[in-house]
């Protein structure tokens, strides 16, 4: 069985995110980048399916991202994935979900697959669109927000549970299909030391847009980010203190009338 897992490089959730001066992105200096958390569940699920099916099953990581993403691709290989495709081209910039899906669809079609796992969303821009556009382009079933995954014994279909408000929805999907993973689906394994050493010898196939047959960045720009803005600063909280409660209330009323001018 050929298992593909999608991996996106995103800033660590704990990183302090500052928007750059031009408002075109974040200031990446000193920011640690990690594998998108939800993609980790996809990697783990891929490895488990490979272990379940056995034979010559293979887990291939597909990542579109800058050169720096190799460390994270290598981490997935250290967790146990077999090889990887890294789509890396300076012309890419920050592609919108539609463009991303077109490029990924081409790379994925070239690879061939029986099943695709990805995260339910990327934790950086929270678009949660790529997997669905991809499913349409590849013309395969998609199931999103998967919290439980079970492959049938004959490997032709999967029974999964989608986590929805207040409960689970049980869904059956014919393979090949794409599944986007929710937290709790599994517990991703760590990259072990022997795994890290083995990963050094595993193949990462780097592909430019030209390698994939694109003359230019495909898709046009269906959507364009105009500007990145910081969250508006919350107003400061001021405590009104006094010995007696009634004095504090009087002071509060005065502030609301004279300073805030709301009453």
């Amino acid at each position, binding site marked *: 069985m050929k298992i593909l897992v999608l991996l996106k490089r995103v800033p660590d959730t704990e990183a302090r995110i500052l928007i750059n001066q031009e408002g075109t992105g974040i200031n990446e200096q000193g920011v640690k980048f*990690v594998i998108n958390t939800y993609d980790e569940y996809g990697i783990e699920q891929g490895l488990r399916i490979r272990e379940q099916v056995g034979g010559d099953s293979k887990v291939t990581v597909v990542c579109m991202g800058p050169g720096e993403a*190799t*460390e994270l691709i*290598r*981490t997935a290989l*250290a967790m146990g994935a077999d090889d990887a495709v890294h789509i890396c081209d300076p012309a890419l910039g920050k592609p919108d979900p539609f463009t991303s899906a077109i490029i990924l669809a081409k790379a994925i079609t070239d690879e061939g697959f029986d099943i695709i796992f990805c995260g339910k969303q990327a934790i950086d821009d929270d678009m949660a669109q790529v997997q669905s556009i991809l499913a349409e382009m590849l013309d395969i079933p998609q199931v999103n927000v998967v919290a439980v995954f079970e492959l049938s014994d004959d490997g032709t279909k999967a029974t999964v549970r989608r986590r929805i408000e207040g409960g689970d929805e049980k869904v059956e999907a014919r393979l090949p299909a794409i599944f986007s993973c929710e937290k709790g689906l599994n517990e991703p394994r*760590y*990259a*072990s*030391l*022997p*795994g*890290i*050493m083995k*990963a*050094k010898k595993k193949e990462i196939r780097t592909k430019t847009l030209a390698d994939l047959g694109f003359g230019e960045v495909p898709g046009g720009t269906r959507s364009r980010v105009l500007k990145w803005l910081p969250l508006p600063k919350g107003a400061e909280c001021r405590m009104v203190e006094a010995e007696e409660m009634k004095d504090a209330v009087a002071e509060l009323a005065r502030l609301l009338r004279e300073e805030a001018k709301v009453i």
Partner: protein
Amino acid sequence: MINYDLAEEQQILRNSIREFAENEVRPVAEELDEKEEFSLELTKKMAGMGLFGMFIPEEYGGSGMDYISYVIAIEELARVDGSTAATAAAGNSLGIGPIYYFGNEQQKREWLPGLCSGETLASFGLTEPNAGSDAGATQTAADLKNGEWVINGSKIFITNSATPISAIIIVQCRTGTLDKGKSELSCILVPNETEGVTAKEMHGKMMWRSSNTGELYFEDVCVPEKNLLGKRGGGFKQMLSTLDRGRLSIAAMGLGGAQGAFELALKYSKERKQFNRTICSFQVNAFKLADMATEIEAARNLLYKAAWLCDQGRPFGREAAMAKLYCSEVMRRVVNEAVQIHGGYGLMREYQVERFFRDQKLLDIGEGTSEIQRIVIARELGCFE
């Protein structure tokens, strides 16, 4: 040419061990410390990560990594818990190391796979009640009789020697007398299960409370002559070489512990308000944090250089002694101020820094006290000639 970048695999290793330590070690460290309990479960988990046999080639079951990687792994464990780091560091440097470096092919094949998989633990029995810093004063005696070593004596403070999976002890013994009355010292491999061996877990430690420390007694213990490690009379050299490498890992514990305590103090100081301000905004505290960060950076550079020299196959004993000394002392200053920044809460178990404060003290003493490190360095400077 100087290049300060870590290799990709070293960076991946750091991330992975950090995650492991945060998720698997941090939640249990406080309780294990309080109960003074060695955790077999945690040891098995570390083995599953490949944390035993890090620098041992794959053919013996190790991971085949370099010493910088090893140092990074111990640093990351110590950033969260000293005891856990101690179990791994002693397991590698003192247990697995001597068998790999000085053992013959048969000894390596016999012991290394089990030790690297974490099925078993080895320990390094050097220190005796009357032979601490003066490690050449070993009294434990081994006499060769009818093709067997007959061993009598005792060892004290031996890490990993009294756990349920402790399987083999590298025992430094007196095997004869040289001219001028000096002892001939040799290391002999003694399985824990051998008749006459008693391993008693030592309790009441101030620090490293969930690391296993044993007291060993040998009473007419007989092992085959072939259990000799390396050459007869090679014990002293083997010990010096083992301690040189071991010091890299003790230094890594100082560095990691300092880093961990510093991070706790920084976080606390940004949250804690007094006089309507975060306490980190008082210059006196800000300067303390700035000093900590600076010293930690210097310590890291010194230690990584020593490990790099070791990886290059160059002499590194002087740098290892310096790194061990400096990293321990940096951690001492850091934990002291980290507790101070926590105020009264820093003295309470719940805030973790008090454990770092206690765990630090061992680093001034184990694998050669700070005084002994200064002797090693001063000797290199030619002071005693």
